[in-house]
Structure formats: structure tokens, C-alpha cells
């Protein structure tokens, strides 16, 4: 039992404990949920230990015990630089979500907070599972609480959005399950580390068709979750209809499940397929960046605008991953965290505005700055962070991604940079229409400034925006160590063209020679 297991199972224990709280005591369930989530956050800070001074190469805090005997499924979890920050992001955002829902949720309070904790359980599990099957289990578990969060506590079209969200993800993930089972039948193991080393050493050689199909099965599941254009259509609905905390968890952490899956599984398991598809994927990513930005620009609804901005921002992440460069990957992972912080912050701010006016339409605001200066300031910082202003977090991520992409194909950078410009346009335009201008009488009376509770929720995010933007070196080293490893793994591939005919696989050195040769031709 390591510290990591504690971090995984504490939310589940919290979920079960919360179910025992009597229904008639909403205050008690709020306090209990906040207490539990803060404890989880504090415990999870302990995970930083091994990464404080050194960069361990393997997995830390790993536990590997048998779970199911036939087929062999093990409870195998481990932490590395890739999952470390995502877990801390999850454990940080959960108490924040509880704080921002403190007053907003008045109906079925106990269940709401219980589902938030169950969601946290699933999310942490996804980021640390090293057994493919275990990963799938956690992946599906996250669906259930999010489905209920949207469906019960959401806005008017919540049911449509919830069902759409569930079905999209489910449709993608069943394909992934099929691919996992196929891999198991070929390799005899669900353990990611074992399969990966088998593929790397050539003990498991998949034919070209197998690689492509398996890669696509995984990729589609992850791409739906990211979401990559054109599979993004569930996202605006889910975001708009979800309650604020739901949107925050969805945008900040759940979308990262897809990105994480791409880096963790798609690249090391199917390097050849990933590399040969990367052109198409990057084209889609860039389309998503520009398309998301353009659609965001014309949205009359703030939440929808932020949702489409997510589509745009996550295009950068995919672009970074599939640039197959050190900077691009680092930027992609960093951008995952940045997006979690800044878009989470944006959703929280939009939620604050909604609680005051009960509207998400941009046109029902205007002149907020006068009655609520603090709110406007915080909103401004968050907006600027999202745009990618230097010294704020998004800048670092986007810069690294663009730099990485430029070394591979400069035109990608050019097109992606258009997205950066557009993001400034739509964000600032929204900010201007909401905050400036003349406040109506009605608005001025119903626009109290930030309360202490609301400050408490935003303050950690503001601190992180500045910190991540100005001292990226406190975060990047564990990420770089891991992305370098994955980059190495995804380079080393068995040459399929040989292994189809010849059962003895030829390792990477031969591949590289061939590839350079064919590129020259």
C-alpha cells in the first residue's frame, strides 16, 4: 500500500462515506466533502516527494498486485512525471469545485458532492493505471458521475447533453476495449509496461494492418475525449448544460484523459502507425484550432464561447503530441495543465456571473466593472492567461508547441499561430462586451463583488497562472524526463515491412536507415 493507493482510494472512501450522511443535512455533506477533498489534496502533495530533487526514470509509488486471475488482470498503478501534475490538478480542482458549488447547489446536495468525489476517484485512476484493463475500468467509471452531474444539476437541455456525452464516449471506448482485448490475445498480458516492452523488443510484432487498426481504435476513443475536430460536437452541449463545477471538471481534467491516453498509450504502443498518421492528425488538429476559434468568436453564449475555445486550445495539445519533438511534447503536456488552470478559471468566472444574473448570454451583461471591480480584475487575469499573454501560463505551452511544430513543418506553425491571434480576438471581445460599457440599473443592483468564498476558489488558480507562466522550470523537468522517454519509445519501432515476411523482427537501427533512405527518394 503506497501513498498513491491512498490517493486513489480516498475519494472512493469519501464517496461511500458521503452516501451515509443523512439526506436532511446538506450543510454536513458540504463540509464533509470539502474536508475529504482537502485531505486528499494534502495527501497528494506527498506524491511530489521523489520529484523534488531528482527525476526518477521509472514509475514511482507503483503497486502491482493480481486482481483477476483469468484473464490475467492486475491492479498495476504507478506514477511518473506525466501523471504527477495531472493528479495534482485533479486533487486541487476538486475542492475548488466543491467551494464554487457551495451555494449554487441546493437540490440533492449529498448526491452532488458524492458524485464529485466519485469523479475524482475515476480521474485519478485513469492517470495512474498501468494495466490497460484497469485503465479502461477507470475510464468508464468517470462517465457515470459526469453523466449524472450534467443530467441532474445541469441547465435546460441537460438530458440531451448528458446522453450525448455518454453515448459519444461509450461508442469510442468500446472500440478501444476491442483493441485492448486484441492486444491481450496477441501478447498474453494487459500490462502496459509488459506489452510496451514486448513491442519495443520485437517479441510482439504486429503486422502493418494490425498496427493501423489498433492505433485507430485507441485513437478514436481518445480523440472523442480530447475532443479533436470533427469529433468535438458533444463538447459544447455538455459544457453549456453542465453546472459550473461539472464544466470545470470536464474542461480541466476530463478532456486531459484523451490527451493523456494519446501520449501514454498510442505513441509507445503503435509508434509506426502514429508516425505515419501524424500528418492527417495534425491537419485535423490545426483545423480544430482555427475552426474552434472562429466558432467561438460568434457565440452569443459565454459558456459556449469558452467551450469552443477549449476545442481550439486542445488542438494545440494534439499538434504538440504529434509533432514528435521534445519541445512539442513538453508544450503539449504543459498546455494540458495550463488549459486546466485557465479554462477552469474561465468557467468559474462565467459561473460567478451566472449566479448573479442567471443568464449566460453576453448581451445580458455589460458594465460589470463598475459594481464589481474585483470580479472584473480576476476575470481579466484569467482571460489574459487564456489568450497566452507572456508571463502567464498559456504562453509557455503554446510557445513550446509552436516551436516544436516549426521544426517539423513550418506551415503548421503558421496556421496554428492564426489560432493564437483569433483567441485574443474572441476572448477580449467577450471581455469587453461583458465588463465594460454602461451598466443597466438592474445589473448594477444585482452584481455584488466577489465574496470571500469566491476569492478562495479563484486565488489558487491565479497564483498558479502567474507561477506557471513565470517559473515554468518548477514544473517542466518531470514532464521533460517523461516525454523524452516516450519520444524514445515511439522512435524505436519494429519495421513492419520486414516483419510481415520475416518472423524475426528488425530493430530500429535498420528502420531509421530505411526511413532516411525512403525520405531521400
Amino acid at each position, binding site marked *: 500500500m503506497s501513498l498513491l493507493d491512498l490517493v486513489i482510494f480516498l475519494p472512493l472512501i469519501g464517496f461511500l462515506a458521503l452516501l451515509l450522511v443523512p439526506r436532511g443535512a446538506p450543510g454536513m455533506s458540504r463540509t464533509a466533502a470539502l474536508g475529504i477533498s482537502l485531505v486528499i489534496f494534502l495527501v497528494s502533495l506527498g506524491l511530489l516527494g521523489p520529484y523534488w530533487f531528482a527525476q526518477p526514470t521509472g514509475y514511482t509509488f507503483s503497486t502491482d498486485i493480481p486482481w483477476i486471475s483469468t484473464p490475467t488482470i492486475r491492479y498495476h498503478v504507478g506514477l511518473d512525471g506525466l501523471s504527477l501534475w495531472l493528479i495534482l490538478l485533479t486533487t486541487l480542482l476538486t475542492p475548488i469545485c466543491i467551494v464554487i458549488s457551495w451555494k449554487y447547489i441546493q437540490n440533492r446536495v449529498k448526491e452532488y458532492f458524492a458524485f464529485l468525489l466519485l469523479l475524482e476517484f475515476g480521474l485519478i485512476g485513469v492517470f495512474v493505471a498501468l494495466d490497460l484493463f484497469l485503465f479502461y475500468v477507470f475510464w468508464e467509471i468517470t462517465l457515470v458521475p459526469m*453523466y449524472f452531474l450534467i443530467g441532474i444539476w445541469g441547465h435546460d437541455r441537460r438530458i440531451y447533453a448528458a446522453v450525448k456525452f455518454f*453515448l459519444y464516449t461509450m461508442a469510442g471506448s468500446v472500440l478501444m476495449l476491442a483493441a485492448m482485448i486484441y492486444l491481450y*490475445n496477441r501478447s498474453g498480458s494487459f500490462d502496459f509496461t509488459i506489452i510496451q516492452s514486448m513491442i519495443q523488443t520485437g517479441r510482439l510484432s504486429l503486422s502493418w494492418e494490425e498496427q493501423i487498426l489498433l492505433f485507430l481504435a485507441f485513437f478514436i476513443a481518445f480523440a472523442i475525449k480530447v475532443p479533436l475536430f470533427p469529433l468535438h460536437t458533444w463538447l459544447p452541449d455538455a459544457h453549456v448544460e453542465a453546472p459550473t463545477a461539472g464544466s470545470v471538471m470536464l474542461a480541466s481534467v476530463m478532456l486531459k484523459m484523451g490527451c493523456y491516453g494519446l501520449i501514454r498509450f498510442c505513441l509507445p504502443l503503435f509508434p509506426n502507425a502514429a508516425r505515419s498518421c501524424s500528418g492527417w492528425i495534425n491537419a485535423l488538429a490545426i483545423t480544430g484550432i482555427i475552426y474552434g476559434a472562429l466558432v467561438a468568436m460568434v457565440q452569443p453564449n459565454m459558456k459556449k464561447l469558452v467551450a469552443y475555445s477549449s476545442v481550439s486550445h486542445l488542438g494545440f495539445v494534439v499538434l504538440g503530441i504529434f509533432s514528435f519533438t521534445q519541445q512539442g511534447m513538453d508544450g503539449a503536456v504543459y498546455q494540458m495543465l495550463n488549459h486546466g488552470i485557465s479554462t477552469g478559471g474561465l468557467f468559474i468566472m462565467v459561473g460567478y456571473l451566472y449566479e448573479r444574473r442567471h443568464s449566460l448570454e453576453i448581451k445580458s451583461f455589460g458594465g460589470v466593472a463598475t459594481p464589481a471591480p474585483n470580479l472584473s480584475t480576476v476575470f481579466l487575469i484569467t482571460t489574459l492567461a487564456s489568450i497566452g499573454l507572456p508571463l502567464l501560463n498559456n504562453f509557455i505551452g503554446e510557445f513550446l508547441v509552436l516551436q516544436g511544430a516549426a521544426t517539423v513543418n513550418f506551415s503548421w506553425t503558421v496556421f496554428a499561430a492564426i489560432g493564437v491571434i483569433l483567441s485574443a480576438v474572441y476572448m477580449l471581445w467577450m471581455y469587453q462586451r461583458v465588463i465594460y460599457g454602461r451598466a443597466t440599473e438592474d445589473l448594477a443592483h444585482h452584481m455584488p463583488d466577489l465574496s470571500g468564498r469566491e476569492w478562495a476558489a479563484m486565488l489558487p488558480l491565479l497564483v498558479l497562472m502567474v507561477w506557471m507562466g513565470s517559473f515554468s522550470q518548477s514544473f517542466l523537468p518531470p514532464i521533460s524526463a517523461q516525454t523524452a522517454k516516450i519520444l524514445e519509445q515511439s522512435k524505436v519501432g519494429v519495421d513492419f515491412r520486414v516483419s510481415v515476411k520475416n518472423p524475426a523482427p528488425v530493430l530500429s537501427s535498420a528502420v531509421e536507415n530505411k526511413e532516411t533512405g525512403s525520405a531521400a527518394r
Partner: protein
Amino acid sequence: MPLANFIPTADDYLRYLPEIILTVVGVVIMFLEAVGGERRKPALGWLAGAGLLAAIWGSVVALGVGGTGFQNMVIVDGFATFFRILVLVIGLLTIVSSTQYLDREKANAGEFHALLLFSIAGQCVMASANELIMVFIGLEISSIASYILAGYLRDDRRNNESALKYFLLGSFATAFLLYGVAWVYGLTGSTNLAEVRRVLMTPESAPNLVLMGTAAALMFVGFAFKVSAAPFQVWAPDVYQGAPAPVSAFMSTGPKAAAFAVFLRVFITAFGPIATRWEPFVWGSAIATMIVGNFAALTQTNIKRLLAYSSIAHAGYVLVAVTAHSEIGTAAAMFYLAAYAFMQIGAFAVVTWFSRQGEKFVNVDDLAGLGERQPMVAAMLTIFLLSLIGVPLTGGFFGKFYIFRAALDSNLVWLTVIGLLNSAVAAYYYLRLIVVMYMKEPGAATENIGPVSAGLRVAILGSALATLVLGIFPSLVLDFAGRSAALVK
């Protein structure tokens, strides 16, 4: 062979202990029903429950003896014992979940319990049959009792319709089956499964494959009717909708499990050598069953009918495992049928409680607001529905997982992909129930629901617990299934 050889040994009786116990208890209940007073009737339910528990013990004893008995007519192996215990547990759950129904409809009579026991006895016969004749006898014992159960409230028009449809189409199906048995006997000179296999394996004596295929096809028609596989599934929705809810729960699990048991045993043991011939047909039937079940369920408004279509779809998943015709496929089918039984009975138990007297409230929309007014029951139903969808940590998920693993192991890639996409489609109509329960404003139907009776509580909680245990520790059941899945000895 001298006739004295047919005199059974003491071991033979022990091998047949569960069937003997069930029959004796059933007959005793019939007798007490005739002589006993009105007041003693609830005791008959307890007696039936005790009989089922004794029969479970009896199947364990029978497994201890093991082997074939009664001149090779009966085989007691792990496979048979698995299905015996499964149908017995299904019977127990049916009895506890029917208590409230029988009280409510003022129909608490011994016949219900006696018929249930007879039906289960028939299913036990099927599970342990090593002979086509025994298969037929078991099927008839099981079916005739369930025909009557389907029309148990004989003044109720829906019950009558259900029983009549079930009877007519069911006897039609058994006729096909019997005709197939006759063909097999004519072609191979035996009705013993191992002997049929031996004949088919010997090149000199192997009968014409076209005729043998026809025989297998005729038997397939019979089995497909019983497991409600397309294109012979049309009866299922009408019958399950019309029958009393606890009986529908029973019919969609017990006879189905037993029918799959003989299906697997006959097709893998006896027709194993001609697997390449029947595999394409079962393949097609599996796909058609999944698609018909799932897509028809999408538009249903009656919960019982919806569960009936979902039951068809689930038969399709099990057919995928049959198509794999491998040991892990058999084990997967066994596990799936067990997991499926619990979630289906649990869902029907909630419907039994919810529908109230005369089954007035069986529409999907009637569930509106159940999550708010009866959070505990709603949570249980949610567990069953999530399991039917196949969300991890429930039995239904592992069932699907094992089935599709077996299918991929037999290189049935397309079948797997279509099946998995089907399960994504299925999520939609199960989710609709959850949506109505939790996300709709409470309606009139959820007002003033009486309490859940103790029996139903046991049934619902027991099924939920079993669903979760199968989902978290599937090895408990799967290891046994895996050990006993070897049908070809």
C-alpha cells in the same frame, strides 16, 4: 443389452439428487395445496424455498459423485452443476421477489411454487442431459410449467394472451427440435451426444454433410426459439410484457440459461466436428439478434417490453460466445448468463414492486422522480441498468468483456466490433430509464408507493450485491466456469 443393466445404481440417484428433490417438494406442495387451508398458503412459499436450497445442496453432492449416469443419459460435470446451481438461484430469487406480487394480486396459491419447482427441475434435466432425448424431455418439462406460469392470473387478459402465444410458438419450436433429433438419430444411429460426435468424426461412417446440416439447422431453430434469438424472437416481447412481472423475470433468465446450456452442449459436443458448417449461421443469428433487440428497444415505452427486447439483445451477446465455440467462449457464456440473470431479475423485481396492483404503472415515464422519492430503490435499479449497459465494476461489463475476448480469440473481429457498437447503442435506452428516474420532475406514478416488502428487498439487494461482486471479483465465478467449460471429453 440385458434389461437388468438399466437398473440404476445408488450413485445414479445421487447424480440426480437436485431433480429428485425438486420433484418431490413440488409434488408435496401440490398435495398440500389441495388439502391445506387458505391460511397455510404462505408456508408453501417457504417450503419451495427450502426445496430449492436443498436442491442446491443436492447439486453439490451430485458433483461430488460426478460422471455419467442412467446408461449415459445424464452427465454430471462442472458445466451441468454450474447451470443447475444457476437456475436454482434464479428460482430462489423468483420466489422471494414474487411474494409481494402474489399477495397484491390475491393469488397466493401453491400452484405457483409447485410449477416453478417443476420448471426448474426441467431446467436441471436440460443442464445435465447427455442425450438428445433427455434434452427434449427437459425442455418440455421446463416449458410446459412456464407456459402455465405465464398465464398464472387466469382472469387477466394480458396473462392469457401471453400464455397462449408462448404455448403455441413454444410447442412449435419443440416440434422443430424433436424433428431435428429424429434426423440426427436417423443419420448417425444414436442420440447420445458423445456417440454422435464419434460418428461424425469417423470418416468412413460420417453421414452426408448436407443432411447433417439440415438436422443441426432444425435443432438450431428449436434452441433459437427458446433463447429468443433472431429470426425466432418475435414471441418474446409479447410474452414478457403480458406475463406477471416475476414470471417474466424468471422466463427471461432461467429457461434461457438452461436452453443455452443445452445449446452449447449439443452444438459443441455433438456437432463440434461440423462446426465450420453451423458457425456462419450462428454468426448471422448473433448479429441479427443483437441488432433487432437493441434497435427495437430504442423506441419502447413499456418497461417490461423494453426489458424483453434487451433480453433478446443479451441473447445475441451470448450467441457471440457460442459462435466462438472454444473453451473460453463457453466459460464466457456461462459467466454472462449468470451475471445477466442477476441484473435482469433485479430490474424486474423493481418493476414488480413499482407496477402495483394490476400492473398499472409499467411505462417508462411513470418512473419520473423515483430518484428523489425512493432514492434507495432508484440507486439499485441504476446499478442493474449500468450493468445491462456494461459499465465497469458491474457483472454485465465483465460478461461482455469475456465474451468479446473469446470472440477475438476465435478471430471473429467483425462480430466483436458489431457487438461492441451494439452495446453502445444499447446504452441509449437504458440511460433513458435513468434519465426519467433522476432528471424528470416527479410525476403522479411515484406518489404513495407502498413500501418494498421484505421478500422483494432480499431479491433486489441480493441481485445488486451479486451484480457488484461479479463486477469486482469476477474470478469467483469465472474460475469455476473456466474449469468446467471443457465440454468435449
